[in-house]
């Protein structure tokens, strides 16, 4: 998030697109609802009539996978009606002409034909957005989990720059992160192209810096593989040794049959986890980890806040902290690592080696955490990024973005679009919530379908149905709901039985390699 949760309170207008906040980020949603109660205007764009829409002044029920067309349509109105922030665009951005050129191809009438939101509503949304300064834009995986995910993200940034909403309190582009420390895992360089703090592996100066700091030579300056390519590599034998730490890939990745084929192809696989799960069975070695509350460390939340996590119990059996496992492995390869606790790793390595965390030390985050960038020990942390429209790389660059449809669209044999997400009472593949009593509140996977489709197909609420795609078939209970529009099936990946990932399409955004969990073609029948 460029901005912070505390800024929800004073926001004048929210534009929430592809975020089912009340279920996926319930506490954040409470602050949004407070703001709406206090007079803020909420605009929601989502394929489903999800709970946030109850609080929305304007709701655009867009067709799955049409965000770019919809957002370009809005920007068309802003430009044609001269409603955009010319001063911000002139002073803080470049390539407006390129944006304009692409946006001009999407008059509201044309955009409406693609995204199935009326031209009048697109125009009304544009005018409403322009009438508030700033607008806080929030999104979640509804924007990113598409083959055009990166373009969707670019479009939200284009819109917020065009409206002059960047670098302002209660404005910005705010992706709410799905997992407790997914922000931290990125920040800590569990990514193939950067050292922690987003220092590029291809930069010779960074290579030298880390070789010196770690006391090694020969760090690779070649960008590594992203997860989907690793999985393919297991089949092609390009990747022979695979180490999975705390991810249940056999349930969480698209097209389970294919994923399991990849995992089964691994020559040697290590899985490090707290529970046996669908993935550990493919392992050659399983390493038992300390769980949450069994070690001292930090998580970084969506708003870049580094918070303490504390130990209150010892791990079961001879399970060990994860950093200890990596340190001991390094030792077996002849490397002695100095740090011997979460605090030593953070204070003496992480914070020292990345300018963004230079001022973050454990003694400063005993209570409320600090938001990076926080370069010095006196720095109070950064509540919102790009203050006064000053972007990290100079001027904000508009990116010309064209709409592309999902890789697989509905057809005669598979006439429904399957979209996926999360439910309030479960978390991911239930390794945690399934052992914390949450099954009582959501006991099985369901296929959410519209009332219209249920009537047409003679499907009753609670009845078992088949949902089938080109990749698989599941037998699940139908949940007939007004949340879902006709022509759509909505499911999650919480349960092994009826997991949506038996059906999802393993196609990815070409650059970010994010899978298209939000759209594939399925059929539903009894």
């Amino acid at each position, binding site marked *: 998030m460029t901005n912070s949760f505390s800024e929800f309170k004073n926001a004048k207008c929210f534009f929430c697109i592809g975020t089912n906040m009340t279920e996926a980020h319930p*506490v954040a949603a409470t602050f949004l609802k407070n703001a709406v109660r206090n007079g803020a205007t909420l605009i929601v764009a989502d394929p489903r009539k999800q709970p946030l829409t109850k609080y929305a002044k304007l709701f655009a029920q867009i067709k799955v996978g049409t965000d770019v067309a919809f957002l370009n349509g809005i920007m068309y109105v802003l430009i044609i009606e001269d409603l955009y922030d010319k001063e911000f665009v002139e002073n803080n951005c470049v390539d407006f002409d390129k944006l304009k050129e692409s946006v001009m191809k999407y008059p509201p009438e044309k955009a409406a034909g693609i995204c199935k939101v009326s031209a009048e509503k697109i125009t009304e949304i544009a005018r409403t957005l322009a009438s508030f300064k700033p607008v806080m834009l929030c999104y979640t995986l509804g924007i990113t989990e598409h083959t055009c995910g990166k373009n969707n993200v670019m479009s939200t940034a284009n819109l917020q720059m065009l409206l002059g909403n960047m670098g302002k309190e209660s404005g910005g582009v705010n992706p709410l992160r799905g997992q407790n420390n997914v922000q931290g895992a990125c920040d800590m360089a569990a990514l193939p192209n950067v050292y922690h703090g987003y220092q590029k592996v291809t930069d010779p100066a960074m290579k030298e810096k880390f070789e010196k700091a770690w006391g090694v030579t020969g760090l690779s300056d070649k960008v590594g*593989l992203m997860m989907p390519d690793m999985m393919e590599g297991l089949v092609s034998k390009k990747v022979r040794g695979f180490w999975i730490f705390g991810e249940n890939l056999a349930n969480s990745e698209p097209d389970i049959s294919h994923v399991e084929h990849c995992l089964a192809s691994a020559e040697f696989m290590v899985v490090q986890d707290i529970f046996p799960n669908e993935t550990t069975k493919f392992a050659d070695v*399983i390493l038992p980890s300390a769980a949450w509350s069994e070690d001292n460390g930090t998580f970084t939340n969506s708003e870049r806040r580094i918070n303490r996590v504390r130990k209150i119990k010892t791990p079961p059996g001879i399970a060990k902290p994860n950093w200890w496992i990596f340190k001991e492995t390094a030792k077996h390869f002849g490397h002695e690592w100095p740090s011997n606790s979460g605090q030593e790793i953070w204070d003496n390595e992480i914070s020292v080696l990345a300018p963004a965390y230079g001022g973050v030390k454990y003694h400063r985050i005993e209570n409320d955490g600090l938001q990076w960038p926080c370069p010095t020990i006196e720095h109070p942390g950064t509540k919102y990024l790009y203050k006064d429209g000053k972007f990290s790389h100079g001027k904000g660059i508009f990116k010309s973005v064209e709409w592309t449809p999902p890789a697989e669209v509905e057809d005669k044999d598979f006439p429904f679009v399957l979209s996926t997400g999360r439910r309030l009472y479960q978390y991911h593949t239930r390794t945690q919530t399934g052992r914390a009593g949450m099954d009582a509140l959501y006991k099985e996977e369901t296929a959410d379908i519209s009332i219209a489709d249920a009537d047409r197909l003679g499907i009753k609420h609670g009845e078992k149905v088949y949902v089938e795609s080109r990749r698989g078939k599941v037998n699940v209970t139908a949940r007939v709901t007004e949340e879902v529009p006709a022509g759509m099936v909505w499911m999650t990946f919480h349960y092994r039985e009826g997991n949506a990932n038996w059906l999802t399409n393993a196609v990815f955004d070409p650059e970010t390699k*994010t899978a298209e969990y939000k759209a594939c073609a399925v059929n539903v029948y009894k």
Partner: protein
Amino acid sequence: MKVTINGRLIEAKEGQTILQVALANGMYIPHLCYHDKVGAAGKCRACVVEVEGMRGLQTSCSVQLRDGMVINTDSETVKNAQKLVIDLMLSSGKHDCLSCEQNGNCELQDAAYFLGIERASVQYGDINRETDESSEFVYVERDKCISCGRCVEACNNVVVNEVINFGNRGHHTEIVFDTDLPMGQSTCVQCGECSQLCPVGAIVDKKNKGVARYWETQKVRTTCPYCGVGCQLELHVKGEQIVKVTGVEDAEPNKGRLCVKGRYGYDFIYSKDRLTTPLIKENGQFREASWEEALGLIREKFGKIIEESGPDAVAGVSCARSINEDSYSMQKLFRSVFKTNNIDHCART
């Protein structure tokens, strides 16, 4: 501005109430409906005080201070009035502390203690309100409810879930869920905000009923293991057992609020399914192994693969739920020891 409370000259800010300033200066005034989060209701009347120049007793939670105000919170008149309120509350409910979850953390108990009330002077005979056990995680004992309205306010205006309200009238007033449905059948999402703010033992968490007395638990602040909001939790810990979780009031980013998973989803760490020892697969079956053996095998296999096919023949996926220090260590292993950048995680799922 300056005000005088019980003879003490005190600095106060515009907009503050008598109660806020008295509490901030270490002067306790019994109060049950007021909570920082839900604001003043002026409802329970336990917080009455005398204000010079104002007729009758004033509810200190709702009167804003004015410069030069002179306030008495401990006169006999005040104490008698407060005593009457607390006595009537004790009289009109089943406030049997012995096995009440809230014992030791009960604001009604605190008020009675402060005012020296040993037991209620009268006891209504007809109290037999419905106990609601229908919810998975929340237990509602209406006989202990003092109708302070904190839960109603919290549900509707703090977390805006709009489930709890007052039903019926007069002596029969009680909290209801939706259209007087059992809580477990209502639209309640079990965030537990009502339980966190209930000043007595009327709404409590089911998971810790009978597990630990309040004073037996240590409070440890930590961060929630679920979504990316990063709510601050207070773990109530007895030995190594989490017995209860509350939100840390006034903390960023959640200001004490939690969701159902954050408040009640903690006990997976105690599951009997946990992996407790390294395991090595032999002939398709896993067998227990020591760390030395398991890490030795990894040294051998990864070492051989790297030697034969180069560093890029190994790859790793880190965990988006574990701590920063773990992800840092894993990528350090892959980069500095294995010499590959083949390290990623499920950032995109």
